[in-house]
């Protein structure tokens, strides 16, 4: 990027290389993915949709665990609540697509009071409590007859579109949410807050004594991650479109977020995206072999945890010294004071 105003001693660049190549690449990619429903097969488009949903979740989980040190295994709480917020609003007559931002906001709002409870706990107790909260949310939702109770409910209001128009709209909604989540995370990590999150990732004790208000930062991350997972739940509800407690509140969502972020590399933006790509490539190329892709994926996760704790992206970056989404601060020129 352009150097920041340099009246002082130094100027700061935000990336080591010219961002032009990255920006052109990003523009091409965004163009291609936006047009995908019209240029790729329907089955590939539907795989891409699931991929986007996983990218959203993994990106949020990475903020939680990779940066803010909160290993949540209960993010399915917000996936589920997001899905059910969409279902509820659709039942009340709202266009399901319009409910997506509302579902995200609702999850963020619900997450805020939960932090006051959760943040009393540390480490494993924190993780287990997130899971308990997710199960509690599932049980409560399962008792609401309006939302179909334990058996679930179809999201209404989608039948007025033709089947192809509907799939295209679902694709675009999912893609736009993923794009917003990844771009939003990128700009968050480039901001002052990003430096705070990086300091938490690296050393919480030092962060505190350097003036970082750790609890507020954590609270913000938890709320953002809840909103992001809520949005993922909303698009999931629209694309399924049958919403059921056992599906949307499934622990498997958190397991996938965790695996994918770990394999790709925690504490980087690119890591969870790379992890999601690996996950889908394995799943697609091994789908004839039943559950083998999960076994191989699990083995890969263990191998990465043991030999490459910074994940595949970390290994790649250490070797090639490049970042696709640079968030650093590079001191560029020093005009020595006289």
């Amino acid at each position, binding site marked *: 990027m352009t150097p920041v105003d340099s009246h002082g001693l130094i100027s700061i660049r935000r990336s080591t290389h010219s961002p032009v190549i990255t920006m052109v690449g990003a523009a091409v990619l965004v163009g291609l993915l936006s047009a995908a429903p019209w240029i790729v097969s329907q089955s590939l488009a539907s795989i891409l949709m699931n991929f986007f949903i996983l990218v959203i979740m993994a990106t949020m989980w990475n903020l939680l665990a990779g940066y803010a040190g909160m290993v949540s295994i209960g993010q399915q709480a917000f996936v589920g609540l997001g899905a059910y917020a969409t279902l509820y609003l659709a039942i009340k007559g709202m266009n399901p697509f319009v409910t997506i931002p509302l579902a995200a906001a609702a999850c963020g709002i619900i997450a805020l009071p939960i932090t006051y409870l959760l943040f009393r706990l540390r480490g494993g107790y924190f993780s287990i409590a997130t899971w308990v909260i997710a199960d509690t949310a599932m049980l409560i939702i399962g008792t609401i007859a309006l939302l179909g109770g334990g058996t679930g409910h179809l999201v209404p209001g989608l039948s007025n579109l033709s089947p192809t128009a509907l799939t295209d709209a679902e694709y675009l909604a999912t893609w736009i949410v993923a794009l917003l989540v990844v771009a939003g995370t990128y700009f968050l990590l480039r901001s002052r807050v990003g430096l705070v999150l990086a300091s938490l990732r690296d050393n919480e004790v030092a962060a*505190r004594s350097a003036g970082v208000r750790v609890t507020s930062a954590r609270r913000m991350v938890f709320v953002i991650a809840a909103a992001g997972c809520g949005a993922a739940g909303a698009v999931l509800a629209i694309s399924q479109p049958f919403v059921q407690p056992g599906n949307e509140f499934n622990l498997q969502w958190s397991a996938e977020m965790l695996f994918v972020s770990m394999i790709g590399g925690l504490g980087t933006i690119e890591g969870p995206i790379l992890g999601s790509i690996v996950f889908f490539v394995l799943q697609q190329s091994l789908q004839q072999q039943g559950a083998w892709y999960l076994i191989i994926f699990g083995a890969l996760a263990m191998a990465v945890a043991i030999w490459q704790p910074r994940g595949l992206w970390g290994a790649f970056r250490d070797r090639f010294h490049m970042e696709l989404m640079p968030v650093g601060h590079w001191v560029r020129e020093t005009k020595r004071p006289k």
Partner: protein
Amino acid sequence: MPLLQLEGVSKKFGQVVVAEEITFQLDQGAAVGIVGPNGAGKTSLFGMISGDIRQDSGRILFEDQSVGSMTAAVRCRMGMGRTYQVPHPFERMTVFENALLAAQQGAQAHGQKSYDLAFAALERTGLAELANRPAGSLGLLHRKRLEMARALATGPKLLLLDEIAGGLTDPEVNELIVIIRGLRDDGIAVLWIEHVVRALLSTVDRLLCLASGRLVADGPPSEVLASEEVRKVYLGGKIINEAAI
């Protein structure tokens, strides 16, 4: 008005007494050294002052405000900067970003001002050349300096230095002394835990001695080092040996 006041501060970890009725004051701009054997409770004392750990009883006042219930972050923003005996760098951030975080959060500076503040802290501690290096790649000397740079970038009125010269060579210690004296001369109060007594003596005008959580001596360095209590604590002469390093 004293900058820092401790009034009857006590703390135990289980059976281990790390602070027992510790009372002392520190004036604005003063430079005070703390000595004492390993396990005396020196680092724990810093922890209670900076807010990393909470005392069991007693009061700690900074600029006449009781800070007992404040978090470490708030105390930092009030003007306490601290370094750790075992350096705590943000390893995956660059040296510059380490200082920048402190300038943006501790000193609450924005934009170019935060860049200048961070860079000035690096220049002051001799790290400017290494600004773009990942902090995790630094050796011990530079890690120690980074601790100081980060504390400085928070814009402190009080600097808490915990064995900042420990493990360094003689010439390295000399460079450090020059830096710390410069800070003292700029009016930053320094509270400095150090085993390298020679380094302390060149900079401080008062010495405290801690042993088993008790403050056994407090006064001009020569008197403290000569006192009966301190000699007993060091089992006859160890402190002199260290002074000769």
